[in-house]
C-alpha cells in the first residue's frame, strides 16, 4: 500500500456514502482507475454498507411483553389488566401429564452427563453468553425461513404438503422440548447441544421445503 492509497483510503467510506466533495471524488476516481487494491476495498465497503442496511429486525423474546406489562403496572404507568386464568380440564390434565412424561424421558435419556455444571469460570460464562446470542440469531433466521417455507407449502399438492407439515410438527415438538430443557438447565452444555442440534434439524428441513422443485 503506497502513501496515496493510505491517504485516500480514509476517504473511501465517505465516498461510499456519497459525501465527499467534488474535488475529493475526482481524486479518488483517478486513483481507483489505477489501483486494484483500493477498488477492492471500495467494493467491500459498498457491500458491507448494503448488507448492514438490509439486516432484518430481530424478534424480542417471548415473555418480555408480559414482564414489561407487570413492571409498568406495578409502577402505575399502565392500568393493570385482569389476569387470564386457565381452568383445569381433562384435556389440560392430559397435556400436563404428557409434558411431565416427556420431561422425564428427556432427562433420563440424557443420562448422568447432564448434571448441571458448577463451574462458574469466566470462560464458561462467555460460552453461555455466546450460546444465548446464537439462539437469538437462530430464532430470527428460522422465523424468516418459516415464512418462506409456508409460502412454498401453499403451492404444494395437498398430500405432499401434509407430509411436510407432519414432519415439521414433529421437529417443532422436539424443539419445544429442548427449549424447555434449556430454560430449566441454562448452564448445562448438553442441554444447549440438544437445542442447537434441534435448530439445525429445523433449518435443514426448512431448506428442503424451500428448495423442493415443484415443476
Amino acid at each position: 500500500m503506497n502513501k496515496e492509497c493510505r491517504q485516500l483510503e480514509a476517504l473511501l467510506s465517505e465516498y461510499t456514502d456519497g459525501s465527499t466533495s467534488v474535488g475529493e471524488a475526482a481524486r479518488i476516481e483517478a486513483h481507483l482507475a489505477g489501483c486494484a487494491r483500493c477498488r477492492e476495498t471500495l467494493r467491500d465497503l459498498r457491500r458491507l454498507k448494503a448488507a448492514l442496511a438490509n439486516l432484518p429486525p430481530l424478534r424480542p423474546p417471548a415473555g418480555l411483553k408480559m414482564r414489561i406489562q407487570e413492571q409498568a403496572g406495578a409502577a402505575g404507568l399502565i392500568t393493570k389488566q385482569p389476569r387470564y386464568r386457565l381452568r383445569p380440564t381433562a384435556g389440560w390434565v392430559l397435556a400436563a401429564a404428557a409434558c411431565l412424561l416427556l420431561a422425564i424421558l428427556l432427562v433420563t435419556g440424557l443420562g448422568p452427563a447432564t448434571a448441571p455444571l458448577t463451574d462458574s469460570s469466566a470462560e464458561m460464562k462467555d460460552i453461555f453468553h455466546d450460546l444465548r446470542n446464537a439462539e437469538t440469531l437462530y430464532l430470527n433466521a428460522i422465523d424468516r425461513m418459516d415464512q418462506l417455507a409456508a409460502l412454498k407449502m401453499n403451492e404444494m399438492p395437498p398430500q405432499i404438503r401434509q407430509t411436510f407439515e407432519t414432519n415439521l410438527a414433529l421437529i417443532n415438538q422436539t424443539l419445544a422440548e429442548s427449549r424447555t430443557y434449556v430454560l430449566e438447565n441454562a448452564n448445562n452444555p448438553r442441554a444447549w447441544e440438544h437445542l442447537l442440534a434441534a435448530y439445525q434439524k429445523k433449518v435443514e428441513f426448512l431448506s428442503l421445503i424451500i428448495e423442493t422443485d415443484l415443476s
Partner: protein
Amino acid sequence: MGALAGQPNQDAICGMRLLAGKDDIAFSQKIASGDARAFEEFYDRFATRLFSIAFRLCGDAGLSEDMTQEVFLHLLRKIHLFNGQASLSTWLYRVATNFYISYLRSYRPKQYPHESEESLHKHLDQKSSQQSSTLHHRLDLERCLAQLPDGYRTIIVLHDIEGYKHEEIAEMLNISPGTSKSQLHHARMKLRSLLQGVEP
C-alpha cells in the same frame, strides 16, 4: 451540544424530519393515560425494532432484553413529552437510542478505540483480500458486529443500520461530526477484516 446524562436531549428530539399526524398524537395521549390496550398496541408496533437496536448496540441477548424492558418503562414515563413535531416512531426511536447509549455508558463505560492507521493497515495486510468477494452472510455479519469494540459498534449501528446522520450521531455521543466520520471508517474497516477472518 448537550451532554447525555441519562435523559434524552430535548433539543435533539426536536427538529425531526417528519411531522406527526393527528393519529400519532391521539395514540401517544392514550398511552400516556395508562390505557392497557394502547400499551399492547404500542409494544406490538415497536418492540421488534427497539429490541433489534438494543441487541446490536450491546451484542448480548440477555442485556438487550433488560435494555428493551427498561426503555419501554422510560418511554411510558416520557411519552407525555411527545409534541408532534416529528412522527411518533421517529421521536421514540431517537429517545430510545439516547436512552440505550446512556444505559450502556453507565453499565460499562464505553471506550472509543482509535486504532492507529499503522496498526489498522497492518491488521488488514495480514488478512487475505482474496476472500472478500464472498462476504456478508447475515449470521457472520451479526456475529462480527457483536465482536466489534463498543465504540465502533455504536457508530456502525447508528449510521449504517439505523440511518442517523453524522451530525445526529455527534449530538447523541457528544463527539464532533468529524470524529463520527473517522470512527465510522475505522469501524467499517475493522468489520471488513473480521468478516474476512470468518469466511471459509
